[in-house]
């Protein structure tokens, strides 16, 4: 068996998590955002497995399985939503879908609000 220090594995997991986070923050394509979330979830799973192996318990792997299940469920719903969004907006640009979003958004529905809002 290897004797990789657990901390190194966790560090790898942390790195992957951070990369996933960067992806989530940077990409505008919804699909890529979902992928980035998958990266993060996978990193978390890796951390679970490493921890389980650290303690010599099966619980870590069990948790990984649950993470996997959750990732699958999330992705399926997510992709379904992406398709619906694509139908509606003809794009996968997350920023394009901004019908919601208060006064910060210059959409005709809510853009007029900022002017007279906040009267004290």
């Amino acid at each position, binding site marked *: 068996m290897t004797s990789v220090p657990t901390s190194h594995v966790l560090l790898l997991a942390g790195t992957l998590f951070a990369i996933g986070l960067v992806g989530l923050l940077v990409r505008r394509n919804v699909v890529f955002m979902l992928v980035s979330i998958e990266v993060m979830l996978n990193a978390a799973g890796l951390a679970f497995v490493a921890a389980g192996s650290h303690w010599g318990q099966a619980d870590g792997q069990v948790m990984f399985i649950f993470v996997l299940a959750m990732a699958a469920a999330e992705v399926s719903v997510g992709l379904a939503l992406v398709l619906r969004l694509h139908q509606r907006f003809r794009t996968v640009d*997350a920023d394009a879908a*901004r019908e919601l979003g208060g006064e*910060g958004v210059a959409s005709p529905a809510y853009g007029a609000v900022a002017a007279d809002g906040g009267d004290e």
Partner: protein
Amino acid sequence: MLRLAWLLPALPFAGFVALALLGRRLPRATATAVGVGSVGLAFAVAVAIGAAWLAAPPAGGAYVQHLWRWFDVAGFAPDVALFVDPLALVMCGVVTGVGFLIHVYATEYMRDEPGYARFFASMNLFVGSMLTLVLADDLLLLYLGWEGVGLCSYLLIGFWYRDAANGRAARKAFVVTRVGDTAFAIALFLIVRELGTLEIDEVLVRAAAQWPAGGTLAILVAALLLAGAAGKSAQAPLQVWLPDAMAGPTPVSALIHAATMVTAGVYLIARMNVLFALAPPVMTAVMIVGAATLLLGAFSALAQRDLKRVLAYSTISQIGYMFLALGVGAWSAAVFHLMTHAFFKALLFLGAGAVLLATHHEGDVLKLGGLRRRLPVTFWTFVIGGAALAGVPLVTAGFFSKDAILWEAWSRGGPVPWAVGLLGAFLTALYVSRVILLTFFGEQKHAAEPERGLRIQLPLVALAALSIGGGWVHGGFDRFLAGDAHGGEALFEVVAAVISLAGVGVAWLAWRRGLWARPDGALQRFWRSGWGFDAVYHTLFVRPYVWFARANARDVFDRGADAIAGLARGGNRLLVASQDGRVRTYVAGLALGAVVLLAIGVIFARPEPAGAETATEVRP
């Protein structure tokens, strides 16, 4: 008979209530009957009480009538009670008697006024308040009357309310007297704290027993009372309101600003003379105030062009005499002068009113002249009044009362107050002669209607009679008031007589040479402006006050609330901007939060010993 004392204030008050509530709906005759009748009845009551008193003076020299207990809090229990003694009786007599005559006069003078009922309502209220003031057994009740007459003064000065200048004069009168009242009020606080009561007799007894002569408390209280008296009686430095108060109808000037209200300060000091006696420095101060005001008023009177303003400054000056007398401790002389002054000054004002009626309110003496033929009754009564004011010897009341003051000034105060008084007497004779000469002699410069009827002339004549006869009762007056009488030294009487006659003579010479009509010099302007007091007060108090109130009308402290609102609005803008609808922004928030929470974890978990419950609790 004395039990009817309550009717004295009650009658005019009843008149006031009736006129105030029903005024407009009453026929004019009824309003007249109510307005004049109430004061006439009060006069009758006063006479009856006086007669009863003379017939059988009550034991102790005073009669107290308790009406009801005003309130009773923490042992402080002022009564609404009337205190009748010779001093009060004299004042009542003056107020109701002169008041009645003036009311009668006013029925004609105010004949064409739309506010006829309002006028008499105010006048009745004034008489009632003034009687409350002089009859009050308790300083708090006296204060009620004191403020009440102030209010009436305000209402009547501003009687012709459409003219903003009248309003200004009225306000000035009220505010300036109220400055004095504030001092009066503080004196009351002190008395209550130290002596526990405001009942005048009791206060005087306790003060005499508890306060050593010349003690700080006595001095403080007396000084504060002096300030109050000075405000009401238009003494320096609070005299500035009285000349402006001439904006009111002439009967008002006669009643309130000559005969009665302005002498309330004299009455107060006379009433509290025991207390003042405990404070010699304040007595000196009273004397100095009196002397200063005397001269100040006299010089100003000399330079006035308006008939009524001359009389106003004359009033200031004459009350200065009274203060001078009070200051040297001759309070009965002061009150005697108060009485005679009430007669002849009221007469002069009513005469001036008659002139104004005839000339359509042209009061500038330089534009008048030669009215002696057109207005004979007015002329003769005015001359009598003027003579009394000038102190023309032997035939006028003013001579006796002024002479008494001069004599007392010499005998109790020494040569300086006497000399001041003498100088004042000369000036008085000078200015009053000037006015008479300019108004009634020479050629007629201004058209004048003939004299009005009996209701004008009767009061003039009656007052003229009093102005002459009032002086002859001097001895009896003193006995009545103070229990003893002392005649003046003949030598002094002669000196005073010569001085006043000299004043008349100088005035005649100057008139003959046309000096009075010469253009003004700087000194004259200075005197005419009342020695510049108005300008100084305007710069020192009025303008800063108005400036601050106007500049800060929007209240700087409100800006604090605005600042908080601004802060909230700023925070709102910032946060709203972050709600841009972009998922990535929201994820950034998420990540930022995680990073911060992690940092909190890293920072605060580190120093903790493993697994142990913390002992030191950090609480945000």
